């Protein structure tokens, strides 16, 4: 069994590291770099905020009595509760992917491989994934905490033990919850409208919560209100609540107190019990999951047509094709509709925070410049849908080439369809910013023109790039394989463009307004951003349409 498990583990390892071993042409290097940079930024930002907050929190006195290690214990218990929840959720995701998403189990189940070997290889692979995830959640937090106050060898030794045990706990929780979570996701995904509404609602709620928490912490740190917020009564309540945050309290004991042996004992006991339950349930689920017996019937979204469609002009026929493709594929529908709905909310939340922060820093009105930056940035993130515009057609793209329609109709319909979603989201965002009085009516019109021009530029660029590197889905009704670099390149360039526009707008807005006059600064900012938008639009149109006919004919192979 161990030999077979070893062979399977090699296969799992190849899959985990396949992104790094693919040929240079197909590897998504920009995507990997972007992920690393974004992960580093998120970790660095979290650690920065935590450091500031922890330094302030451990100095808090209750009835004029200082107890920095007591405060650190409360903070550690609260943070570890979050870490345990995040790791458990990640464990559920990892186990669900291992059991239900990978097609390999269906092949392995037909081979002379014992279920024990399959289970062992899957769990070892899951452990490695969870260890890496735990490493990047536990270690930065513990290093940050140790930078706030001197901590002894116990803290570092127990950190190492937690790094070993936490993946086991998360996998065990994942195994126990995998089946109910899978059943729930299948139930939701089989109800199309419900799944779309739930996904949109949850994403919007997550962004709202994130912005609220960020706003609250920024407010506490920047104003120094923290000391007033954490008064004696509040602190007593915090002490009481954190004392009941099981099992996070055991982790805090392990790391910080003399009750370390008891803490270790409890954590080991929890790990053993959960692992036993996880192994039992995991083994029981493995073979049925491999045979696709668990809720397989719910997995397909069923649609029955109604009546005979009306006759339409060719361009509208292609527009309808794009619409049908989006509306009948839940993941595309989420990316097309939900992101368009969420974009105005994000613009609103961020406009609120940025406007307040910049207003505190400089005595000039920079709302137009901030709005330009935010709408361009969120518009670019919303438009990533169009990065798979060609690939999404799959093999049908080749069939279209045998039909009596020219490339302008096919590509034009794609540009138009993407533009509709983008234009609605941008217009609502601008309407919100204008309606809430952040900008003047004429500024709103200008904002709309500039951001729409950049949206069109992005759509044209994305479509042309996808035409150059299409990744057609091979399986029937499968989603386009968007694992190549088109999406990453689009996001990277988009973020660079939005940052450049933001810097140009804010520099002109703030520096020139303070140095010369408000009207001069505003004129320069407006003109500079308009010039960048026009240049981007013209470049993207030329990039898309120059040699498009030849490129369109070349897609299936050979020179035109």
């Amino acid at each position, binding site marked *: 069994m161990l030999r077979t498990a070893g062979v399977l583990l090699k296969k799992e390892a190849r899959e985990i590291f396949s992104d790094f071993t693919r040929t240079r042409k197909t590897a998504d290097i920009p995507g990997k770099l972007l992920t690393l940079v974004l992960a580093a930024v998120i970790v660095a930002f979290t650690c920065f905020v935590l450091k500031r907050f922890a330094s302030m929190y451990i100095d808090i006195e209750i009835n004029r009595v200082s107890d920095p290690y007591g405060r650190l214990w409360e903070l550690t218990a609260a943070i570890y509760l979050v870490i345990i929840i995040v790791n458990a959720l990640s464990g559920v995701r990892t186990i669900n992917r291992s059991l239900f998403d990978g097609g390999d189990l269906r092949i392995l189940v037909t081979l002379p491989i014992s279920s024990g070997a399959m289970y062992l290889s899957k769990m070892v692979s899951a452990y490695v994934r969870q260890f890496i995830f735990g490493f990047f959640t536990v270690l930065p937090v513990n290093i940050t905490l140790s930078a706030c106050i001197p901590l002894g060898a116990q803290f570092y030794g127990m950190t190492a033990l937690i790094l070993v045990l936490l993946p086991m706990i998360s996998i065990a929780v994942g195994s126990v919850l995998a089946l109910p979570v899978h059943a729930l996701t299948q139930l939701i995904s089989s109800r199309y409208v419900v799944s779309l509404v739930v996904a949109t609602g949850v994403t919007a709620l997550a962004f709202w919560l994130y912005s609220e928490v960020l706003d609250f912490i920024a407010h506490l740190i920047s104003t120094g209100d923290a000391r007033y917020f954490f008064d004696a009564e509040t602190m007593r309540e915090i002490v009481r609540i954190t004392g009941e945050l099981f099992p996070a309290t055991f982790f805090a004991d392990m790391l910080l107190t003399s009750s370390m042996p008891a803490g270790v004992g409890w954590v080991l006991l929890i790990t053993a019990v959960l692992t036993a339950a996880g192994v039992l349930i995991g083994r029981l689920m493995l073979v049925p999951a491999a045979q696709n017996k668990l809720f397989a019937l719910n997995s*397909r979204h*069923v*649609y*029955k*047509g*109604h009546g*005979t*469609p*009306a*006759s*339409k*002009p*060719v361009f509208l*026929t292609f527009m*309808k*094709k794009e619409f*049908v*493709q989006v509306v*009948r*594929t839940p993941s595309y529908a989420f990316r097309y509709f939900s992101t368009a709905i969420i974009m105005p909310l994000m613009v609103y939340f961020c406009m609120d925070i940025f406007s307040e922060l910049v207003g505190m820093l400089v005595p000039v009105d920079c709302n137009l410049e901030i709005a330009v930056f935010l709408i361009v940035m969120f518009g670019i993130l919303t438009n990533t849908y169009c990065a798979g515009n060609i690939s999404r*057609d*799959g*093999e*049908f793209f*080749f*069939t279209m*080439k*045998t*039909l*009596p*329609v*020219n490339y302008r109709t096919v590509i034009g319909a794609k540009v138009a369809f993407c533009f509709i979603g983008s234009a609605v989201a941008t217009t609502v965002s601008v309407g919100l910013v204008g309606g809430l009085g952040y900008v003047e009516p004429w500024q709103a019109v200008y904002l709309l023109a500039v951001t729409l021009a950049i949206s069109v530029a992005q759509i044209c660029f994305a479509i042309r790039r996808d035409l150059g590197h299409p990744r057609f889905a091979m399986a*029937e*009704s499968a989603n386009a394989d968007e694992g190549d670099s088109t999406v990453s390149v689009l996001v990277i360039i988009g973020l660079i463009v939005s940052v450049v526009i933001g810097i140009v707008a804010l520099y002109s807005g703030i520096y020139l307004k303070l140095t010369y006059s408000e009207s001069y600064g505003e004129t320069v900012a407006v003109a500079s951003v308009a010039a960048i938008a026009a240049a981007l639009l013209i470049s993207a149109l030329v990039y898309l349409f120059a040699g498009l*006919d030849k490129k369109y*004919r*070349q897609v*299936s*192979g*050979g*020179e*035109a």
Partner: protein
Amino acid sequence: MRKRDLAAAGQSDAPAVRVDGLKKKYPRAAEYAVGGISFEVHRGEIVGLLGHNGAGKSTTLKCLTGMLPYKEGEISVFGNPVKGDATAAKMCFGFVTDDHAVFSKMTGLEYIAFMADIYGVDAATRDRRTEELQKCFNLGDKIMNLISSYSHGMKQKICMMGSLVHDPALWILDEPMLGLDPTTINAVSEFMREYAAKGGAVLFSTHNLDAVRRICDRAIVIRGGLIEADMSVRGIGDSELLERFFLHGAEAEE
């Protein structure tokens, strides 16, 4: 405008298909997939493009339908060139791909309507035509279901129905019998014969010798991107000769 185009499509006296010196090489390939072939297909004919895997049959059909670009040689459909903007040529034929590349997010009926709109077929004609095609291909109520829920054979049938909705003068099929059950193969064969009897031309690729013997008037045997034989399969002894060409190549004749 579109209706006029459709009415005029395939009315020319020129051959339904004329391939002259077609050569096709894929990027970075060492050898030609099609090494210079010439043939014609005329109205009322059923022609089988016969060859083993990798012989160049599909490449030829893909060049002919505009799916693949090519540099060397000329192809025309009812006198309309396929190189460059081949819209006029494409109006004359219906094509069934070998991989059932249909738009699987549509229902069968929506797919036929989609194809009809592209060829400029009005709604009344489309509905009448769909009814006629249903009699032959018999998808029943399943025509209202998403194509992604169809079986292999049903997908083949909806591809064929979509390719025929504009009543083309030329029907091109790439490996049409692959994976079909015997009943459907019989129905498709019968439909091809009726179609040719009404003056339509049929050109299909296959590696199934028996299908060519049963259905075709003429067979073009391709091997290594070149034509080995272009012969009738209706005469006495033609069948054995075709088999020798297909299995052993031109050397067998010498």
